[in-house]
């Protein structure tokens, strides 16, 4: 009998009722993250059927998706700055949390922020937990060795009522990343390259476990970037085994176990990494030492190239052509040097201190090109405060960038922060779908380094060139 993988260990520990041919497993959920956009209909279902929330204490609520990134302290402010439908979602969230007895990290909270940023910050995200949220980027939390994945609103209602989900056991894909990253290449480039390699449907039906030496050299924020975009490769979740870096990150956080509980938890967490003889349904490897900074050229994250390379030649596929037409790029031609309008640094992919510090360091002493609007949106109010304590806000502002309150912001353009029609944006977010960042918006996904280099030059730029000057 072969050993168990990290995924199997977490899965097996959460089985309430095992799966059969006729029925999926009943899986216990340790942490349910909720936000204002995908829960109103779930709470409505509970109210209609007069059901209560089983574990409000395991439900972590915040507001991020349609929440303004200009200062809001009262509901009156909200009416002024937010569109009526967005404000209605926020009001519903406040009312629902109050009605069902769920603590909400709302406008007054120093911990408010993007749901996938604050879970780890609070220490609520822990190794070995099952974590779900009505948001596909819940895969982020897998960086801690949790099994974390996105669900729909009806499933969210299911979790609210039962603290369980009905799930079939997925397949497991091992992705081994080998080799050291070159200067100017980041975790974002690793995951973009992987999605390019396996395709946006490559991981369908699988949970990915990441293995390999470079992971040990990545901090938790960089690991979260990789797990965050795992969903863009079609996989339900990405997981990384907890190690000393994971423990160091978690120790002392408000919701992390403490004292004897911490010791007991650590003892359990140490047993989570996959056994040496664990079996995987599929194995893929990626040589990180050969990677360059990556940029997308099309309308899904798998349409990605090294920044120095030309757009691939036309395959004759109508979807490929449609994507190039939408993006106004030409097959066989480079997009390095193409004029841009917007740079967005933020989102659950790249809005944490590592990202902001790197961006600030690069932009210091430079100016955002006159033709470019640059928006920097910290992932949480805690990050905003920490960045301001380090003076990063002043560096961004004096370079000509806008410095905002936390939220999802321009990643999906629900809160008023949008890329204009036809404008070209270099964005550190996770999706370059048609119209994702605004009506008719064109998105190039990239690392924070590539985004900053592009903001300074006013064109799509190679961050390694900036470092040379």
């Amino acid at each position, binding site marked *: 009998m072969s050993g168990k993988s990290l995924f199997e260990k977490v899965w097996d520990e959460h089985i*309430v*009722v095992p799966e059969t041919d*006729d029925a*999926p497993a*009943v899986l*216990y959920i*340790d942490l349910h993250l909720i936000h204002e*956009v*995908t829960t*109103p*209909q779930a709470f*409505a279902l509970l109210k209609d*059927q007069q*059901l209560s929330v089983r574990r409000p*204490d*395991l439900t972590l609520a915040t507001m991020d998706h*349609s929440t303004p990134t200009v200062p809001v302290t009262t509901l009156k402010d909200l009416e002024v700055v937010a569109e009526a*439908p*967005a404000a*209605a*979602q926020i009001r*519903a969230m406040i009312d629902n949390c109050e009605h069902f007895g769920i603590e909400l990290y709302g406008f007054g909270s120093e911990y408010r922020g993007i749901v996938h940023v604050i879970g780890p910050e609070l220490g609520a995200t822990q190794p070995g937990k099952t974590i779900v949220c*009505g*948001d*596909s980027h819940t895969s982020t939390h897998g960086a801690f060795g949790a099994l974390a994945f*996105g*669900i*729909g*609103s*009806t*499933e969210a*209602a*299911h979790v609210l*009522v*039962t603290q*369980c989900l*009905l799930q*079939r056991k997925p397949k497991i894909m091992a992705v081994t990343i080998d080799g050291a990253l070159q200067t100017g290449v980041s975790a974002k480039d690793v995951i973009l390259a992987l999605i390019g390699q396996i395709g*946006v*449907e490559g991981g*369908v*039906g699988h949970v990915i476990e990441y293995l390999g030496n470079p992971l040990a050299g990545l901090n938790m924020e960089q690991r979260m970037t990789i797990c965050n975009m795992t969903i863009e490769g*079609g996989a*339900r979740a990405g997981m990384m085994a907890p190690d000393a870096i994971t423990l160091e990150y978690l120790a002392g956080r408000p919701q992390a*176990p403490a004292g004897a509980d911490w010791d*007991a*938890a650590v003892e*359990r967490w140490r047993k989570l990494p996959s056994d040496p003889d664990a079996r995987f349904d599929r194995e893929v490897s990626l040589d990180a030492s050969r990677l360059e900074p990556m940029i997308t050229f099309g309308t*899904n994250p798998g349409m990605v190239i090294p920044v120095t390379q030309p757009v691939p030649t036309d395959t004759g596929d109508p*979807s490929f052509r*449609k994507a190039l037409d939408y993006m106004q790029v030409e097959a066989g031609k480079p997009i390095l040097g193409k004029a841009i309008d917007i740079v967005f640094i933020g989102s659950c992919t790249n809005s944490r201190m590592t990202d902001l510090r790197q961006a600030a360091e690069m932009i210091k002493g430079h100016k955002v090109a006159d033709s470019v609007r640059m928006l920097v949106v910290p992932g949480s109010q805690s990050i905003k405060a920490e960045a301001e304590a380090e003076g990063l806000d002043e560096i961004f502002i004096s370079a000509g960038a806008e410095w905002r309150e936390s939220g999802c912001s321009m990643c*999906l*353009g*629900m809160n008023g922060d949008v890329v204009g*029609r036809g404008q070209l944006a270099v964005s550190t977010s996770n*999706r370059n*779908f*048609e*119209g994702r960042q605004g*009506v008719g918006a064109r998105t190039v996904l990239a690392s924070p380094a590539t985004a900053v280099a592009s903001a300074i030059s006013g064109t799509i730029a190679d961050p390694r060139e900036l470092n040379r000057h």
Partner: protein
Amino acid sequence: MCGNWNGCEPAAIVNKFTRLKAIAAPLLRINVDTDAIIPSREIKRVSKVGLSDGLFAGWRYTEPGGRVEDPGFILNRDPFRQAQILLSGLNFGCGSSREHAVWALAEWGIRSIIAPSYGAIFYANCARNGVLPVILDNDVVEDMARQVTDEPEQHLISVDLVDCTVTAPDDTVHAFEIDAADREMLLEGLDAIDVTRKRDDEILAFQARDRLRRPWIYL
């Protein structure tokens, strides 16, 4: 106009699916993401009602963000306006978890989708809203798309969840596989919450066991 075996049903969300014989609209693109099915600007709602206005908004209207229909888009053309089946390419419904995508499709009138593969969250959302996601090989989907292009109202597709078959307009029968639980949920119109609430004893037993081994989860 509609070819539903049970007669025309209003395009309200119904949770049951048994059989359907209907006009099928081909939308043969790969990786149709849920942002394309309904953009985020269209989901700023606290109810499920009215979302069909935003269905495929980026493709369906002449101006992005507008409401003037583009006659070139398949669902704006008669008789595809009455389509209850959508044919599409691999990885349909990938991307965002937004269940609004399924609510918008269902409210517009789509009862079944036939594609080679789906985004996992979208697939699960379909089964919970009475929309049947059928998985068939790309060749089969493309062949059926060719058959329905001319005189679509004469070339209906039948989807049968009782037998788990799709019958093409040329009477070719294609068997499909679906998880037994999803099938039952659709056939019976079951509510998963009701199903799981019946396991309350087991959930309580799990919590009692788990509290001993992981007390820090239960602070």
